């Protein structure tokens, strides 16, 4: 569970940082009569805060799965799984989707509608291509005899990539809605916010994928072993 605890520490740091700004040591019983509430003049949009909280939940989900991965790894029946080479291509495609959304966000802010719409379409296509690529990776592994129940390493591979894929699928649905909305209504304030939220989500899912990829290919294990050696 150490990974989860590290993740929780990060979350706790954010919470403590936020709480530190909330004047928790004030004496509310003395502060009678004014309606100052020390909030920022331009608060963050609720949807953005909502996404932040949601990403903490998703992060917790993956941190726990990674914890489970490491704990299960310790048993003797753990095999190895040769990752198909084109997972690298998939990684590049997902990075492309993330980059496209970043570009879209910049263009939407500058009201370059045409470029922003192109960016959205590129991101959509890249997201879809990533999912198709993942399915190919599954098929390649299955054809090579690495079936789901064959070994815990295989099971974790299919489960974790599946879980990640489902999140990408959800992201695609949101992205699709934004794309439709953008082609109907252009990039008004609301659509720009949606684009920004999509971009944040995709960056996050890319980060999760990179960690996941490192985990599945065994580098993460080497890093962990190295850290343990440092500590002991």
């Amino acid at each position, binding site marked *: *569970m150490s990974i*989860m*605890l590290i993740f*929780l520490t990060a*979350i*706790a740091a954010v*919470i403590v940082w936020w*709480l530190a700004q*909330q*004047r*928790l*040591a*004030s*004496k*509310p*019983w*003395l*502060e*009678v*009569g*004014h*309606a*100052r*509430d*020390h909030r920022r003049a331009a*608060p*963050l949009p*609720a*949807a953005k*805060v*909502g996404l932040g*909280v*949601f990403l*903490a*939940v998703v992060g*917790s*989900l993956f941190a*726990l*799965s990674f914890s*489970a991965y490491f*704990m*299960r790894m310790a*048993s*003797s*029946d*753990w095999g190895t799984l040769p990752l198909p080479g084109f997972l690298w291509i998939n990684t590049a495609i997902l990075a492309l989707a993330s980059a496209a959304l970043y570009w879209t966000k910049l263009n939407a802010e500058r009201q370059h509608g045409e470029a922003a719409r192109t960016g959205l379409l590129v991101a959509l296509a890249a997201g879809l291509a990533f999912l198709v690529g993942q399915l190919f990776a599954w098929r390649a592994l299955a054809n090579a005899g690495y079936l*789901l*129940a064959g070994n*815990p390493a295989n*099971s974790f591979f299919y*489960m974790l990539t599946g*879980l990640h894929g489902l999140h990408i699928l959800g992201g695609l649905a949101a992205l699709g809605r934004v794309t439709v909305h953008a082609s109907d209504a252009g990039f008004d304030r609301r659509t720009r916010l949606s684009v920004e939220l999509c971009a944040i989500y995709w960056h996050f899912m890319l980060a999760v994928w990179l960690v996941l990829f490192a985990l599945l290919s065994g580098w993460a294990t080497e890093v962990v072993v190295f850290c343990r050696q440092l500590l002991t």
Partner: protein
Amino acid sequence: MVDVRSGLGEALPPPEVEDVELYHPHSWWTRYVFSQDAKIIAIQYATTAIAIGMVALVLSWLMRLQLGFPDTFQLVDAEAYYQFITMHGMIMVIYLLTALFLGGFGNYLIPLMVGARDMVFPYANMLSYWIYLLAVLVLVASFFAPGGPTGAGWTLYPPQALLSGTPGGKDWGIILMLSSLIIFIIGFTMGGLNYVVTVLQGRARGMTLMRMPLTVWGIFTATVMALLAFPALFVACVMMLFDRLLGTSFFMPAIVEMGEQLPYGGGSPILFQHLFWFFGHPEVYIVALPAFGIVSDLISTHARKNIFGYRMMVWAIVIIGGLSFVVWAHHMYVSGMNPYFGFFFATTTLIIAVPTAIKVYNWVLTLWRGNIHLTLPMLFALAFIVTFVNGGLTGLFLGNVVVDVPLSDTMFVVAHFHMVMGVAPILVIFGAIYHWYPKITGRMLDETLGQIHFWITFIGAYGIFFPMHYLGLIGVPRRYYELGETAFVPDSVHTLNAFISIMALIVGAAQIVLLFNLVWSLRHGREAGGNPWRATTLEWQTPETPPPHGNWGKELPVVYRWAYDYSVPGAPEDFIPQNQPAPSRVSHEAAS
């Protein structure tokens, strides 16, 4: 005496109505069924939770019939007993307590208490309820599935949960249970995002965090914890479903069943326990923190006194929330862990007693020299304090490894957790129902019926769970379908068991009084008016009761003071609502 004049000081003009995109229902269906109004959603959540809770109550009756009068009722065989015990536990903890506190009270109270018109994401909020309902239906479906519901115990420990010796292990029972939990967590996440972000973003002008009522603090912190802890249960359920349906071996070790080698191997049941309790322990506080918050407000309001040590109360809530994530393995002392590990978790567990004790002291000190009105909410709040102290003290026993190991599999544990996270939070729920029902419906609940309900429930609950401590100390094991002829179990145990069962039947039946009261008072209750308890918090200051959609009419409230201005010296009344502007400076200094 100082002349108190309002309207002076730095009173700000009320804010103009912001053009919030309030959702406007167009038909009966979208107004009352597929409603996006948090108050309707709250009532839907509460009704569903109480309905499924009644099922769990009947299940506990059936179990007690078997334990009190073994071999008398053909209805309960060993299989059915384990199914009942499992469903009773799971329903009570997740589908009743979690859903009622967060989905029910959270939805109703958060927007009203922080001065918002509604939750920030009303559509997701509506989905949250319907997904919760689906989870409940899937759970109920397992009663009618071939093989019946799972009998694995509410902790669903593998490998036994997936074996044919456990009811539902090789049938639909466990599949439906795991699916239902997964659905519940998805639905809860949608609701939970709402509760958190509404507190963060939706507060009225002047409502600083330190002016929020403790009810909101409790629900808010519990929701944050639930959002971080439920993923652990989610992951555990998904992995177990894989084991059950797709033949993986995440949790399943190599195992021989009825002389036949199963295709599993190498899995780690302990891994499941870590994941489960990483959720399971915060879950205790997910239920307890809203109860702490609500009870603080009940005590303050009905003792006409400000809450003692408000800041401490807030800090304690936050600290308990944080600590509860590093104590989970105290549920696993008997799993054979490294002794240093056990030492660590025993220490963290006992440290939680400090902020919890601070809360108890502060409740008692709030009562000290208060103007205590023994209304129904106050009675339940007092009963809660006693019960929680009781359950907390036995927690100190069980938190120690050496004491826990011999007691772990006895009725002592059953007594402990029922006191601390069963009876105590339920008492708060009852108190809260009597307290807020007038706001929800505009009518008071009947006092006499309420007194009957309170005294039978309170004394009866002690009749049930107090003797269980003694049973546990004698060594009577929990989870057993019947004791049979056991040398160390004296005859008095059987008498006591019969007594407990009769008490359980009575207490269960007393809840019918509450249900009747809830329905009867809708029509025949005394008119409550807007603020029958003369309380300070914003939900009692709505222009209409029950509050309509949008809560506040044209103008949002502005908050000028904290939530606990009761019996302020010099004030004309013994309470000053949070949205009342400042009295003059002179009187304020006299007050402090």
